[in-house]
């Protein structure tokens, strides 16, 4: 909780003791840039915030500063994984309409340019007689990941919770992992990355994959920063059709944000499968076959 305005000591003390600053951000109150402090006049705006005791208070707007509750974890910490978890995703191909909301949510969360998506929604037609369907594809967080095996510097690694991450401060950009991944899940920063949009993207951690660096690889990371806060990855909540389920295999439960279902039962009832199972990569993303579709295929 760092306050940079040194002028108003008494007010600062008051704010700290009542913990308003933290609470106000919890409630989603917009932060104000501190640069306006220097130009502050007596008639500046005030904002209502709630204290932990439930009292409504009024604070001058420019006294507020956003704080980050969950500082991005360090590169070393992010190699360990969240204890006791085993994250899985289930994609119900019967429901996907190519709404592309997951792609957009991912782009916003990871500050990606549109030409380097982590999620690709592919049109698949198994044979000339069957109807085509849409297949959202991302990194499958393989349990036997070929990409991790070939990395010369250990920049990409497997965690105890099943997630495969990349430390882009270590990556030398040899692109061996891209050649090794049978699912073409990885994207390379061929050119300069998108400029940093907001403060959320400013501090690097392998768990957020932002900010990107030119000449390094990236891919879907299952958003461990959200998982640490007990939130679902943005793509799951963004999907309007409930295609994507996310959960913990140890708890045997997955949710698409609306329904929570038993993972084993879902896979059993709907004949879940993993993509290119015969390669032995042991993906952690399951697909439910595109059967009983509720709508015709549209480009």
């Amino acid at each position, binding site marked *: 909780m760092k306050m940079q305005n040194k002028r108003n000591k008494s007010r600062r003390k008051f704010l700290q003791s009542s913990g308003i600053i933290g609470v106000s951000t919890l409630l989603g109150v917009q932060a104000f840039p501190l640069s306006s402090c220097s130009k502050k006049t007596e008639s500046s705006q005030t904002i209502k915030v709630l204290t932990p005791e439930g009292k409504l208070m009024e604070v001058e707007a420019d006294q507020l500063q956003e704080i980050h509750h969950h500082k991005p974890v360090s590169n070393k910490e992010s190699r360990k994984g969240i204890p006791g978890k085993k994250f899985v995703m289930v994609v119900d191909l019967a429901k996907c309409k190519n709404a592309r909301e997951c792609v957009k949510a991912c782009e916003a969360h990871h500050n990606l340019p549109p030409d380097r998506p982590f999620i690709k929604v592919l049109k698949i037609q198994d044979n000339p007689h069957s109807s085509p369907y849409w297949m959202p594809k991302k990194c499958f967080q393989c349990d036997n990941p070929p990409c991790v095996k070939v990395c010369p*510097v250990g920049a990409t690694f497997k965690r105890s919770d099943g997630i495969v991450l990349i430390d882009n401060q270590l*990556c030398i950009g040899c692109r061996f992992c891209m050649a*090794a991944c049978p699912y073409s899940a990885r*994207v390379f920063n061929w050119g*300069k990355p998108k400029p940093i949009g907001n403060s959320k993207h400013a501090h690097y951690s392998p768990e957020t994959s932002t900010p990107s660096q030119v000449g390094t690889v990236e891919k879907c990371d299952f958003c461990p920063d959200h998982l640490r806060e007990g939130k679902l990855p943005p793509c799951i909540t963004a999907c309007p059709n409930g295609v994507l389920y996310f959960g913990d295999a140890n708890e045997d439960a997955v949710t698409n944000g609306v329904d929570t279902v038993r993972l084993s039962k879902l896979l059993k009832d709907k004949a879940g499968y993993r993509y290119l199972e015969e*390669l032995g990569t042991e993906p952690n993303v399951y697909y439910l076959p595109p059967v009983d579709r509720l709508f015709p295929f549209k480009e």
Partner: protein
Amino acid sequence: MESILKTKENQQILNDLTTPVLKSGRNFKFLMLVLSIVIALGIFAYYKQLKHGLIVTAMRDYTSWGIYISNFVFFVAVSLVGSLISSILKLANAKWSYPLTRIAEMVAVASIICASIIIIVDMGRPDRFFHVITHGRIQSPIIWDVIVIITYLVISILLLLLPLLPDLAICRDQLNGIPQWKKRLYKAISLNWKGSPIQQKRLHRASSILEIMVIPVAFAIHTITSWLFATTWRPGWDSTNLGPILFPGLLCLEQQLLLLQCTLFEGISTFRTI
């Protein structure tokens, strides 16, 4: 050795030998100019790549290695020529191959240097090259490649340098009227060669050891490079056969290249095979 050099005919031969070192013809100068332009273009292109990222190469996620790595394989293949000609044939006592030796060794050193440069050019983050040493994982074929290329580079340079020592000594002793720094350079790289029997014997021993050593290293460099590709899941590469398949192909390539080299060389100079 001094006494042999004193006779008149020998002096004549030595003069003939050392003249091309001092004087270069028009063709040679033209060739150097053309090559310098090519190198300058390459440096400019690399500068552009450093500035804008690998996007300037038009490689993309599905074709992520492109011509850089094809070139790398090419140069690795060509580099084997040095070890092949200068060691296998020497060990087999094939005297006809001696005049080819030096060309082959030059080609070997040059191409292995090119191969290592291309790897660095291909890297997305050349500034982090030393991560390969500080964070290297022996599990990755790239680390094997780095180790074997460095080993091969050292051996090829030695293979080139050792038989060159007597000639460098001649340059040191015979060339007069060259700048002081060149004199010093010759003095430094001729490693105090005097041609005494004990030096001759040592040189012979060292060459034999190197000639034998380079054969397994050459096998390693080829098979590591080919099996590096086999560790990926790309169709066509994903096969343990890739090592045995690539090896004969590379052997053919490098012999053809040597032939080409000799033909060109014969064209521009009075080089003759015995």
